[in-house]
């Protein structure tokens, strides 16, 4: 009798625990199925293609960077600054007549500097990542406003500027648009770094317990620098893609990515049994957010109500996932 109850308890616990890991994936599939029926325009090749190339690519690259940082136990509030400064320098250099390749390097260089500044504040001045990157966020906003007379966008819509933008945003390889190829490269790169390399193990150790990493002879400051610089450069890539698509630089446009990137990363932690950030989890998080936004728009919810829908979904998914797990324990 006792044995029976014991087994029953164990089985139900295991299935609950397993179910909790799949809650996000189930939610994603459910949301896709729902919109397929509820929003006629949703499951069309064109819509999906636009969704991926306009929304998913840009957010996913930033979120990959955020995944590295959160995986290492930090947070980067300055991803918007990396996006914007990269975009700003890129656009300004194009406007000044530099070659596209140099402008790209200039933009990425600006993002690199943001990461370097974060690393300096965190490693040398020992400011915690939240406050360090918050400070950089404030400074970055000011820099943009000062360099654009208070936030005037720079539009390079004239034909003479089109070549470098088209080379990035309008080309394709084997029918796959270049931005998507860039995303795939970023995914593979971050996946290998986080889940297959020594660096990824150190990141996990830093995230779990930084002191243990230090006591194990790991170069903590160096790895923290790599973490924050990687995140900034990935955000910089998004900045360049964003500018190339819209052929302009809009000050503070990068801010919009910050909370989505953090949200996607944390939603993604629900797929791993240890609740750790992972590349796959983050991508599912990004896709879930993008599909929700798009689907709610298509069924005619106005912008203000979309946020409510997304908020409720996040509660549902995470509540289900973490709640089931707690019950399982």
């Amino acid at each position, binding site marked *: 009798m006792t044995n029976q109850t014991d087994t029953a308890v164990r089985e139900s616990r295991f299935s609950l625990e397993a179910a909790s890991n799949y809650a996000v994936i189930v939610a994603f599939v459910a949301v896709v199925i729902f919109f397929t029926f509820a929003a006629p325009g949703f499951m069309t090749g064109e819509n999906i293609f636009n969704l991926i190339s306009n929304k998913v690519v840009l957010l996913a690259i930033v979120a990959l960077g955020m995944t590295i940082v959160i995986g290492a136990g930090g947070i980067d509030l300055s991803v918007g600054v990396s996006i914007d400064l990269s975009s700003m320098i890129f656009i300004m250099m194009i406007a000044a007549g530099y070659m596209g390749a140099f402008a790209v390097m200039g933009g990425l260089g600006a993002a690199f500097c943001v990461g370097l500044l974060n690393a300096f504040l965190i490693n040398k001045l020992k400011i915690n990542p939240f406050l360090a990157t918050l400070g950089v966020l404030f400074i970055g906003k000011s820099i943009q406003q000062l360099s654009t007379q208070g936030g005037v966008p720079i539009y390079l819509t004239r034909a003479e500027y089109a070549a470098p933008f088209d080379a990035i945003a309008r080309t394709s390889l084997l029918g796959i648009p270049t931005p998507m190829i860039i995303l795939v490269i970023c995914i593979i790169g971050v996946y290998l770094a986080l889940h297959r390399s*020594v660096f*990824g193990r150190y990141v996990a150790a830093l995230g779990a*317990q930084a002191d243990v990493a230090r006591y*194990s002879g790991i170069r903590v400051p160096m790895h923290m620098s790599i973490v924050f610089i990687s995140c900034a450069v990935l955000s910089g890539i998004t900045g360049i893609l964003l500018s190339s698509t819209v052929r302009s630089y809009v000050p503070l446009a990068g801010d919009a990515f910050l909370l989505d990137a953090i949200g996607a990363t944390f939603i993604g932690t629900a797929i791993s049994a240890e609740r750790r950030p992972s590349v796959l989890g983050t991508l599912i998080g990004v896709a879930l957010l993008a599909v929700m936004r798009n689907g709610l728009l298509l069924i005619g919810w106005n912008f203000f109500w979309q946020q409510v829908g997304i908020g409720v979904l996040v509660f549902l998914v995470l509540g289900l996932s973490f709640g089931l797990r707690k019950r399982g324990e």
Partner: protein
Amino acid sequence: MTAAAIEMRSINKIFGPVKALDEADLVVESGTIHGLVGQNGAGKSTIIKILAGIYRRTSGDVSVFGKRLEQITPAAIEAEGVHFIHQDRLLVPTATVAEAIFLRNEPRFGPFINYRQMNRRASELLHRYFELDLNPRTLISELSTAQQKIVQITRALAHDAKILVLDEPTAALVSKEVESLFSVLRRLKADGLAIVFISHYMSEILEICDVVTVLRNGTDVGVVDPSEVGIQKIVEMMTNRDTSEMYPRRNVEIGAPVMSVKNLTVDGAFENVTFDIHAGEILGLTGLLGSGDKEVLNALFGQIKPDAGEIILHGKKQKFGSPVDAVNGGVAKIPEDRRAHGVATGLSVGENMSLASLGQVSTKGFVDRKKESQVIDGLIRDLGIKTPDRHTLVKNLSGGNQQKVVVGKWLSCNSEIYLLDEPTVAVDVGAKVEIYNLMNRLAAEGKGQVFVSSDLEEVTEMCDRVLVIYRGKIIAEYKRGEIDADRLLAAASGTVAETERKRA
């Protein structure tokens, strides 16, 4: 006859497939100090958490002063006069002494806290019970651990406690502080309080407890008077085995020096420390709290930079700027605070064990997972780590097994020198024996070990040589055969220095 202060009968507690308590009884009379002992996992903390209302019992009866309690909540049990002094935490570091003592019981002036009265009453209580003149406005974070314990106990007394439950109250205290805590407990006992005292330290149980309940595998296996049956018997009841194997013997040839420390000095911590560590040797380093023994270990591991002197490893002078250099030089450290510094409890057994040696199982920065799992599985088998597999999170392992994971981490990167900082603190008797076996194994493999411990008995039994450090200086050295606990204690308190000074 009056009812017992605490009467817990036939308590059962089932966690999923695990039976944590099996018909356990605990009966505590007023005016006694009642010891509760058992190995980790024996059910000590489970039964206490049931009493505290943190866990709900599966079945059984609980009465306090004859009153049967059906559903226990933390607030309800406090209302019955039962107070718990937990091992760590539970005082807000930014609160003042008076605020901590009167938390949830603040003297009011309308809706406001009457600080003047609160501070005055806090001073009075501290003085009355402990003859302690502590400024009630002092912040908790500024107090020593012993003073924090006293504040916790005072808080219980301010709430009119009739029963005190102390969980490992002496774990972080030095001997003088333990003495003063004990005299307080004796006074409270004389006042008629019932006190439950949980400790891993058998000598303390013997000294302070009138009666002891021994738990093993969730059942009470005996209620005895410690002064009658003695420590040996109690330990045997806990482990169900003979204690003569407590300190396993080893027979190891001591080899050439592997590390030499010459005139090492860290200003304000220790000076002119000189010694060699030989292959296969366990070198004890002991002293009172603050004597500088721990700082020597920290300097050898690159955590603090020496101001003078040198560390010579394999014939080469070393400059350890950080633990990175020490680890690369083949130095390993088993830190005192295992869960904060030794293992990452949220990572798996495998991830922890390969953390320091990933370089050896990777090519071009990528981890060769096949090679890695071979190394890890080998070590799990070799060290007898009790874990379902290498993917299990370390937090699900027992203390002794966690310590084995720390050792495994260093074995996998072929460290030559092991710095052990209180490796057996807060682990149960069975796990201690396993750690001693591990030390013997390291010695047999020709590793040099520096062993810092404040448990003089284990220093006496385990070391080939002991250096006693007093106020930052090595004042005595004993070889195996000359080492005994009394001698070490005398030296650690500086008596050797006195005699030598007289001779000179």
